[in-house]
């Protein structure tokens, strides 16, 4: 995770476009200024960042489904449940699934676990549009390579 850049996902573990699912890993940093305030003596990952991590996981899935031709933007968060504390240094495994593909939007469900323990879940809706700026497409390509995006899965 590079929280300063809002890059929450470290690695794509699995992408199955046929099943419309993705599994990713996100390593919570051992130390970060966020934990100094959230909370003193009891550092935990803020729920909004866990939600963002689930959103980014879903976003990588939507990017794959749209063949990296459209950029997803988070539009709705429903049923976001923070089920357990996530502490510095823990490894999150996040699974997302596309529940519905609409015209210009997609609905996903996402769950994040530490080990086998479910930590949070949410239903997320994204609008997706053609990349509004070529720079963004270049950036997303670079990020995708950085986190080991399995482009061969898209090429199939």
């Amino acid at each position: 995770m590079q929280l300063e850049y809002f890059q929450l996902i470290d690695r794509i573990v699995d992408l199955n476009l046929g099943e419309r699912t993705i599994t990713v890993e996100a390593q919570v940093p051992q130390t970060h200024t966020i934990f100094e305030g959230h909370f003193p003596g009891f550092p935990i990952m803020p729920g909004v960042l866990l939600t963002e991590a689930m959103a980014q996981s879903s976003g990588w899935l939507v990017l794959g489904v749209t063949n990296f031709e459209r950029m997803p933007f988070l539009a709705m968060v429903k049923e976001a449940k923070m089920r357990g504390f996530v502490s510095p240094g823990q490894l999150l495994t996040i699974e997302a699934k596309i529940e519905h593909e609409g015209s210009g939007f997609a609905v996903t469900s996402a769950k994040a676990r530490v080990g086998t323990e479910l930590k949070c879940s949410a239903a997320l809706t994204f609008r997706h549009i053609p990349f509004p700026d070529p720079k963004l497409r270049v950036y997303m390509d670079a990020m995708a390579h950085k986190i080991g995006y399995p482009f061969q899965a898209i090429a199939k």
Partner: protein
Amino acid sequence: MSSTFDQIANIIAETCDIPRDTIKPESHAIDDLGIDSLDFLDIAFAIDKAFGIKMPLEKWTQEVNDGKATTEQYFVLKNLADRIDELVAAKNAGASTAS
């Protein structure tokens, strides 16, 4: 079996917390009911699921933006119901052709 309009009206009432009895076939989803684009995403999701279709919202929006259609054609509820019936009929025709 309830009509397409009734199903749409029920979805809108539930999704947007609008009293069901204020939703009429002549109601314009945006101008009369005040539904914004985000709420309409929720409605589209529910309609897609309920009818097993994919409403071509992007195509409709493009047609309106290009001046080839009016918002009334898609967002007055009785017209929306007609569009949905057309999509369901096209889907069923495709299914029977494929079988």
